[in-house]
């Protein structure tokens, strides 16, 4: 990162679109000024290689109206509920929002209108911890036109919401700061897809932040798909508050970026709530991917599930740090966590640290991590049916990854991701010793 002063002056001289967020931005900028760029000496950033980000000089992304063909990325189920952002800027011409349920809101911050500004100001930044994170404060210091989703009480979004964040070559060397606030009122139900796609191979820094507040009995499926440019940096943070009887199901898929980091936190703040934080990471070459999660059980009788699956090839490096925190009051917690890693090469690295912090005495919690190669019995089984070694391994890697993808309830997205998985499986088995 260039001297922070340069970045600060870029921010101070930048003309933002949304005036009503200027106080929020300025306050964040003040905090940002006092935060140092993280290094491996910081426990939270111990394993991730930040040097390439530190070295780069980033500018702020600017709006443009370049032609972009979005059709390959559209999801047919979400055709009436798609918001497209290009290089961080909303593109009305590429978006389409029709037939929303009564009282629902699926808008950009600027279109949300006066009544919702207050709402927004209340929630913006309220679920993000810690507040003194370099990238979160940078996002807040330059936050502009994000997305506000409001699902009213006892309302169901029939179609999934697709928030498509595209980055084009015009944003080479830029910082992009997508922001998303999702409010699900009591017994509301929706599927939200945040999709990050780089159109080409070039460098940029994408630092999305999302906050989700779920009231009693709300149901959310939340997919975050990271398929950035393989030269890009992607550092995202997500905070979710899950109230009584609410059900939050999050699937985070990381395919792209040179360096990616995902911080996910779910606070189970109401009894009998449930949360799933599943993940899939497929990396090769010199990619680095780091996932930090916190599942915080704050009330009794809640359940949580976390299966984080990773495949590492070449010199790639995966980090998983998953914490389950069970407060003293959170009796009868039932929590499962597993991090499974397949390491295909001698030069790849996997760092994994599953953690349990339990202060209640009547809970059922399990956690574990495995790092290994493909199972010999499985390979033999497929070979005994006539498949050669490489085809067998390719099929097993494909199946291993697809087990996560299969949970997604949006067919066209599944199809897109399966195609990627298939290409990846082919690529990484091609050079394996036969």
């Amino acid at each position, binding site marked *: 990162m260039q001297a922070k002063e340069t970045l600060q002056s870029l921010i101070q001289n930048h003309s933002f679109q949304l005036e009503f967020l200027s106080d929020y931005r300025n306050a964040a900028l003040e905090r940002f000024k006092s935060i140092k760029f993280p290094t491996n000496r910081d426990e939270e950033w111990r394993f991730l290689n930040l040097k390439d980000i530190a070295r780069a000089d980033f500018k702020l992304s600017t709006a443009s109206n370049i032609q972009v063909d979005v059709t390959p990325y559209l999801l047919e189920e979400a055709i009436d509920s798609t918001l497209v952002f290009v290089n961080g800027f909303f593109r009305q011409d590429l978006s389409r929002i029709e037939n929303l349920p009564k009282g629902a809101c699926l808008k950009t911050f600027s279109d949300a209108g006066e009544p919702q500004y207050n709402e927004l100001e209340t929630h913006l930044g309220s679920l993000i911890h810690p507040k003194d994170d370099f990238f979160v404060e940078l996002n807040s210091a330059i936050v502009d036109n994000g997305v506000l989703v409001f699902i009213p009480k006892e309302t169901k979004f029939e179609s999934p919401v697709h928030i498509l964040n595209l980055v084009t070559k015009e944003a080479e060397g830029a910082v992009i700061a997508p922001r998303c606030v999702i409010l699900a009122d009591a017994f509301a139900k929706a599927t939200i897809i945040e999709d990050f796609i780089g159109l080409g191979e070039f460098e940029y820094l994408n630092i999305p932040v999302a906050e989700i507040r779920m009231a009693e009995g709300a149901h959310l499926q939340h997919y975050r798909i990271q398929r950035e440019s393989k030269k890009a940096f992607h550092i995202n943070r997500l905070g979710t508050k899950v109230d009584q009887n609410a059900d939050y199901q999050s699937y985070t898929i990381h395919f792209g970026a040179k360096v990616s980091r995902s911080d996910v936190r779910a606070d189970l703040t109401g009894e009998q709530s449930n949360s799933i934080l599943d993940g899939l990471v497929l990396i090769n070459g010199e990619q680095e991917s780091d996932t930090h999660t916190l599942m915080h059980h704050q009330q009794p009788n809640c359940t949580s599930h976390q299966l984080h699956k990773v495949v590492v090839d070449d010199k790639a490096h995966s980090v998983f740090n998953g914490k389950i925190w069970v407060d003293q009051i959170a009796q009868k917690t039932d929590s499962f966590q597993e991090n499974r890693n397949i390491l295909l090469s001698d030069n790849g690295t996997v760092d994994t640290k599953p953690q349990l912090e339990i202060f209640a005495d009547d809970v059922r919690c399990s956690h574990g991590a495995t790092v290994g190669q493909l199972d010999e019995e499985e390979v033999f089984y497929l070979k005994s049916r*006539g498949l*050669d070694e490489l085809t067998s391994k390719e*099929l097993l890697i494909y199946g291993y990854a697809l087990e996560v993808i299969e949970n997604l309830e949006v067919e066209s997205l599944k199809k897109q991701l399966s195609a990627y998985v298939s290409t990846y499986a082919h690529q990484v088995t091609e050079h394996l010793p036969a």
Partner: protein
Amino acid sequence: MLEIKNLHARIEGEEVEILKGINLTINKGEKHAIMGPNGGGKSTLSKVIAGHPAYEVTDGEVLFNGENILEMDPEERARLGVFLAFQYPVEVPGVSNATFLRQAYNSIQKSKGGEELDPLEFDDYIREQLKVVEMDPAFLDRAVNTGFSGGEKKRNEILQMAVLQPLLSVLDETDSGLDIDALRIVADGINKLFTPEKAVLMITHYQRMLNYIEPDFVHVLVKGKIVKSGGKELALELEERGYDWILADVHTNGAVK
């Protein structure tokens, strides 16, 4: 079809031999059964025939239609027509049965210079094979063996046998874990698939499977050697008298150390 000569094998990296000189000849059109107490080497024999990498052959030969297959990879043996129905079929999450079976079928067809099938053609083909084991077409879309009951897994093995049409089928305790109805369906399937050009080697603890699939020869495998061979009546005798009399016989004659 299959000639096993003085076969010795052990687990890779271990000293102790599990198979200590097996001799067995199976001609086409024959059904053989291998019985014997636990730990005798029955499953090891089946895995060595199929080419499991965990086992090391220390001596002897396994000829399949005159060709020594011991140096071959499992897939090469499969393409020649060797099939092993697993005692514990492996779950392959994320891969549908249909995809898996089509890939397996096509790889075998390809090696034989036969016609490969596209998904639609294969769908027609496999629907016929499903009938052999009375399986619901819904199984085709499910991940291979994943979440299948024990009986469903065994049926799925026989479905694979139906699809791949092997010459020699080694059935490793295919009857275990099956209830009466499932056993009948599986056994009927195996009988339907049998032709005078093929051969079957059944590994089992129990006579009950042999009530449905009548063997031409029964062998008793004890401590890594075939200590007794006979016709189907030998199985009945074992059912009635257990293995003790054979073991006693073996010890007195010093056949097995």
